């Protein structure tokens, strides 16, 4: 049977609102608000409403996972997310330089 083709929407062109981010992370909205207010999770603002892009979604999911798996407090989970982001960036740089060196 032919499947209908589903149109995917790029997050960033269409950002997530608070409820959507919370739902995507399987947490209550208060979890998100607490971390935004504590400066652990960034968001953009539109007409006074919190909006979240792809990078925020990935970071929030990492923080949820760390908090749940290791009973970590929110600051520690944010620190782990910072370090993972740093590692990712350094890995990309290493890969770029390795390719550059190979030509």
């Amino acid at each position, binding site marked *: 049977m032919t*499947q209908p*083709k589903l149109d995917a929407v790029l*997050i960033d062109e269409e950002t997530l609102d608070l409820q959507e981010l919370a*739902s995507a992370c*399987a947490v209550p909205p208060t979890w998100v608000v607490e971390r935004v207010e504590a400066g652990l999770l960034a968001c953009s603002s539109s007409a006074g409403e919190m909006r979240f892009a*792809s990078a925020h*979604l990935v970071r929030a999911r990492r923080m949820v996972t760390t908090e*749940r798996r290791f009973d970590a407090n929110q600051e520690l989970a944010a620190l782990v997310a910072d370090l993972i982001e740093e590692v990712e960036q350094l890995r990309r740089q290493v890969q*770029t330089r390795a390719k550059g060196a190979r030509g």
Partner: protein
Amino acid sequence: MEFKEYYKSLGVGQTASTDEIKKAYRKLARKYHPDVSKETDASARMAEVNEAYAVLSDPEKRAAFDKLAQRRAAGQDFQPPPDWDAGFHFSDAGSPVGDDGDFSEFFNSLFGRAARARHGGGARAQMRGADQHAKISINLADAYHGATRSLALREARLDESGNVVTAERVLDVRIPKGVKEGQSIRLRGQGSPGLNGGPAGDLYLEVEFEPDARYRIEGRDVTQTVSVAPWEAALGATIEVPTPAGRVEVKVPAGSSNGRKLRLKGRGIPGNPPGDLYLELELALPPANTEKARELYQTMAREFSSFNPREQMGA
């Protein structure tokens, strides 16, 4: 259906205390953390460990699982007996460490959302399905032009008789052009089905680029190496280059050196604004494999006798 040996997954005995289970889980969660683990099957092992912990860390689920394990005939294909969970009540809080969607058919048929709905008794409240997450690999050309990909997802649902069944669902997904590495894309209503007529959740796909040695990608900017002949670099030339954006004609300025970057504005990954495409010149030397070619190199050696390619090294 395969019976899951949850105690074995966590490397603990059946008499392990809650504390021992937690310690074993955390140790394995560090080992198989997908962002840092060097193990090749880290994601699969992490899902297995999460699933085991979701059951063994919950006293009700653990007790029901233990009872089920006692009644199981070794080596046989497993089907849960109709009354396997009589006397137990599972919370509807879901898993503490992962999505039901990541878990096995065995877990979903016993403890997943659909199974909880089956045992929900009189509670018939509508509930939105959970959002699901998956990764999808595309290549750079897909990011430039858009693409359609087929995705196979496993999901647990109740059949007409109220039994939990796990079925594979195939989705054809149209990915819009302009997607960047690490970006998420959303398919509304394609997550886990809702319960009691509730709406389905959404499906989020995190985009990964397939490795391609020809390109280096930073956000929407793309760098590509282009081979040029020494005379093209020295004298300047108009060359035709196949790029992810299609074939382009590029003017190589006279006096270009190896490694020089030419920027093609707006020819990177499409978007608002689009990225740039950088062509990094790489000198390709003709082989000295004929008498004529060797003569030409000898002429160059004579004519450029004062040229020192290792000057910067102090040679």
